[in-house]
């Protein structure tokens, strides 16, 4: 019997945490692979409207985002009027054409017809601005669009 009962302390051995970093790294890599970097910080208010009949936007790399809305509080100096934001900065209407061209140039030839322009427009924006954007998109032949919305019913 004494073979198994070596004298000494009877305290529980501490749980080894040596593998904890490995576990956390695994989680880390999972998140790095499964998520996408937030690409642009918004300079405008972007409270999307809600709609029920939504479709999921598929591949993230085939979407170009066009934001529009009133400048947010830090950018009050830009005025109260609703503005367009492309990538990271405010843009004018006529910059949409070059923005679409740049997006197309960065894609493979076969992917160009699948490109979707997602309009992320604030609820309180006037339709005038939205249809101006649409006219610009029509001019450059970017016909596939998507009105990005929240899920839910818009009916009050």
């Amino acid at each position: 019997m004494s073979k198994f009962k070596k004298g000494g302390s009877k305290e529980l051995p501490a749980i080894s945490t040596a593998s904890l970093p490995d576990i956390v790294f695994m989680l880390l890599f999972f998140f790095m692979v499964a998520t996408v970097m937030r690409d642009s910080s918004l300079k405008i208010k972007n409270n999307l409207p809600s709609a029920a009949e939504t479709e999921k936007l598929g591949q993230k790399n085939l979407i170009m985002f066009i934001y529009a809305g009133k400048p947010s509080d830090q950018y009050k100096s830009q005025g109260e009027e609703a503005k367009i934001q492309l990538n990271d900065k405010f843009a004018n209407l006529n910059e949409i054409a070059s923005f679409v061209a740049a997006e197309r140039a960065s894609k493979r030839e076969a992917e160009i017809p699948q490109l979707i322009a997602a309009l992320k427009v604030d609820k309180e924006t006037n339709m005038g601005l939205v249809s101006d954007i649409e006219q610009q998109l029509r001019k450059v032949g970017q016909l596939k669009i998507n009105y990005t919305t929240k899920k839910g019913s818009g009916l009050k």
Partner: protein
Amino acid sequence: MAKRSAPEVNAGSMADIAFLLLIFFLVTTTIEVDSGISSKLPPDIPPPDVKIKQKNIFTVELNKDNEMLVEDELMKIKDLKAAAIKFIDNGGGENAAKEKCNYCEGLKDPASSDHPEKAIISITHSRATDYETFIVVYDQLVSAYSVLRERLAQKLYNRSFKEMEASYDDSKSPEFKSEKLKAKISNIKAKYPRIISKAEPK
């Protein structure tokens, strides 16, 4: 001098560093996929000069105060869906191939639309209309079409249209990209084509 072994590097803080990185990635990345209403713009060429009968056009007009006129009458947004369904599904006449609409369950009113393939919904809005109002109205119109497509799918194939589309896109389902299912889906889509035209603001 006693023999000294190299001291072991303490790896205890490794976990902390990894956690820090993990939290950084959690904060800066997004996992959710955007969703929205898909739409297609008309190409930038002058439209062909086709005569469309007034009775085949369902006009929805939004003014600057976000009020809605449907066929020149004031209407609440919650009533729009039913009115649109009634119009699309009327089936009072023939389509371009001189066929009657045999799947319509509408009133067959000769003063309303001839055929779902001919029925056009036209949205006009003022420049000052709110985007939210437009989206709500557009959403109602799209959902009118989905109600009709859903009904037809139940009648023809005894299953839900949404579920058919989902199993076509789902790589795990046995019907992933199946030709048969695709034919069914396009059949329903062709019977109730979504024709929503958006006129330029006045």
